């Protein structure tokens, strides 16, 4: 086992970190505790709390047939039961690891959103921030943790840009250094602010050289203050980002390829924006970004109005869920296929899930005691269903997995041990447990 100092020395020597301190002071050094399979996470977040009973966890007993109009099929070699609303993911059943026994979520949206992303430590730091803190940046020229929202041009179907319940707190750095918080992309056309410059490269290079020379007196007076040298490096990184970020976010070449358009569903209205964002997410993880969060968007309700995954009534179930599934089914299946083709599948973890489940009192009510997430990619056993809910599908009863356990498990797949991962002595809740049964 190498310690942090040795690791730093070795990587600096081999040039990975030699280019500078990267996105920020914190989050550039790797603190890995064991070799982890997962290098990046793409999280498709279903805003509003998706109903497990309509998607990936068929209830054994149905109280009100009006609320359960959809059929489930056994799919693939594994025979996992998946709703007919996911025809593309049904074909990928043997890749999915369904976690049907999630519990410990909060049954209100805003609090639930904060809790499901930050609930594992008292620092209030989100999962992506912890991952970046522990693993270090995978590409110092790009932000390490990205929230992708927005709609592409020509999308006349989605009704909002997508957001995370709980707002900035759900994707924040909490008590970790603030530079670890998610970089929010609001406009897919113009993702990072101030990348454009009026000066030519040569002028900027001269200017940066002058800046370093001007700061040198100040820096020489305080050789022990690390911030000063990292500040100079941050200008160099910014300079490199001016070229790296537009390149990473530029999908124009890929969308010309008809195969890619088909794979991610970039032409049909329902999948246009989601497909583009997942394609972008793949480009980002390919370039070393650690955590990409893609929230679901509001979709039209077939019976009038619009919905997100907060489907309480028979109308929203019948009219809303098919469209919500349509938006993500094809692009997610395409993403898995694309990751496999590019050899990224083994080091990327794709997650689908929301801030809570549904069921319990009032049938389709908010439910923190049972929810389903699925994962696919490096780190998880494919083609299994972990745990189970009770007869009605409301409460996790078999092998229950707490929200905190999910965090600990994902971090474990990344090579991080939640017992050891601490910032200023503060780390994860003692009750966190790694779910060994789903690890590949």
């Amino acid at each position, binding site marked *: 086992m190498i310690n942090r100092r040795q690791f730093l020395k070795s990587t600096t020597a081999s040039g990975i970190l030699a280019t500078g301190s990267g996105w920020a002071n914190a989050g550039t050094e790797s603190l890995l505790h064991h070799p982890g399979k997962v290098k990046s996470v793409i999280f498709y977040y279903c805003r509003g709390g998706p109903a497990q009973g309509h998607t990936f966890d068929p209830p054994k007993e149905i109280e009100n047939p009006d609320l359960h109009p959809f059929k489930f099929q056994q799919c693939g070699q594994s025979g996992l039961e998946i709703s007919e609303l996911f025809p593309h993911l049904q074909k990928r059943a043997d890749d999915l690891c369904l976690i049907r026994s999630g519990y410990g979520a909060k*049954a209100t949206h805003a609090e639930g959103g904060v809790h499901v992303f930050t609930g594992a430590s008292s620092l209030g730091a989100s999962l992506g921030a912890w991952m970046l803190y522990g693993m270090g940046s995978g590409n110092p020229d790009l932000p390490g943790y990205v929230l992708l929202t927005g709609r592409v041009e020509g999308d006349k179907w989605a009704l909002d840009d997508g957001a995370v319940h709980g707002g900035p707190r759900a994707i924040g750095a909490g008590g970790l250094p603030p530079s670890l918080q998610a970089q929010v992309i609001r406009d897919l056309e113009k993702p990072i602010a*101030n990348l454009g410059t009026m000066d030519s490269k040569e002028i900027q290079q001269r200017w940066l050289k002058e800046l370093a020379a001007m700061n040198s007196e100040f820096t020489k007076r305080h050789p022990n203050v690390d911030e000063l040298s990292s500040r100079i490096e941050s200008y160099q990184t910014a300079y490199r980002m001016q070229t790296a970020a537009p390149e990473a976010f530029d999908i124009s070449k890929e969308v010309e390829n008809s195969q890619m358009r088909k794979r991610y569903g970039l032409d049909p209205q329902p999948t246009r924006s989601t497909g583009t964002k997942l394609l972008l997410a793949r480009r980002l993880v390919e370039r070393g970004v650690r955590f990409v969060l893609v929230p679901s968007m509001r979709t039209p309700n077939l019976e009038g109005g619009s919905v997100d995954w907060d489907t309480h009534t028979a109308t929203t179930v019948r009219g809303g869920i098919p469209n919500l599934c349509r938006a993500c089914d094809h692009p997610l299946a395409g993403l898995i296929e694309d990751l496999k083709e590019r050899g990224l599948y083994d080091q990327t973890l794709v997650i689908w899930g929301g801030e809570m489940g549904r069921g319990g009192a009032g049938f389709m009510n908010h439910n923190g005691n049972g929810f389903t997430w699925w994962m696919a990619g490096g780190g998880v056993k494919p083609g299994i269903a972990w745990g189970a809910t009770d007869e009605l599908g409301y409460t996790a009863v078999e092998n229950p997995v707490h929200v905190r356990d999910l965090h600990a498990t994902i971090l474990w797949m990344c090579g991080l041990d939640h017992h050891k991962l601490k910032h200023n002595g503060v780390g994860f809740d003692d009750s966190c447990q790694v779910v060994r049964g789903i690890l590949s």
Partner: protein
Amino acid sequence: MTLAGTQSLRNQNIREKCGLEPYRLEAKADKRQFYPELVPAFVGDSRLLKRGDVLYPDKRIARGFPEFFGGELPELEGSGRLHLANWLTESESIQSALLARAFVNRAWQNLFGEALCRTPKELGRLGETPEMPELIDGLAARFVKSGWSVKSLIREIVMSDAYQQSSVMSGDKDAQNRYFARQNVRRLQTEPILNVLASIRRGKRFVSPAERDSELLGAIHYAKHFDSPTTDDLIERRTASITPSQALFLMNEPTAARQVAGDLTRRILNQSGKADFTEMLSKVYQSVLQRPPTEQEIEFAEGFVQRRRKQTGAENRVEEMKEFVHLLLCGNEVIYLE
């Protein structure tokens, strides 16, 4: 029913369920006057909200003080804030000792950038052990003796030898400066950065944050880039991050440092007319760093101009000066305290 109607009906239901008096909303003309009868009747014990939902209030929970502090617990009436204040500052009590220690520790942190006990939220077993507990205790004892006077506490700290030390490190002992033998070099917080840039741009000080922000077009971006905490979070210490997005903001954003540099240059050129370069340079340094440039810096600035002319192949007094001011504004001395 209208949306507002539904809302008010819902509020009515909550009040009925809780047995709460509604707010008395009669407007009084003079808002500066305190009207006790306008204080909502239900300031007092709160109800347990089932699963945190205001729609499901449960039993009333009586207010009180943490019992582990021991001592007599006073009867509470009204809002209870006065009782809380009295209880917290009760002489010779455990809670007042903790309050005084926590307070002087935070005052020290605000003045030095680091606290005596590095975990200001946790002064007990869960926190770090301070290197100089006697210093905290001494300050705390004098703070209480002075009648909890914040002013005399701050005066004592800033008049101390420790506060007046230079930030230059001599020798190689105590790299982390745990013993405060020198001052810490630290980055300014958002508001001082705004103050500095706004006053450089206009050449005057501002009386209010609102007036200041109206002078800087990109004012809202500074909070985002320079770690201003949000109102959602309780934090015990502000962080000073260093990010490339900060650098991009200062380098490229036309309404930030670039604009400030342009305005300062224009003002100085207008004032000094045909003054020579060195004279203008000293005005720039005076405005930006409140000191005249050193010999070395004058030489550097002249070199800067020469190198620029060589690259662009043209001479342009305004652009040259503008670019140099922009450079100064992006440098460390503007936003770091020595």
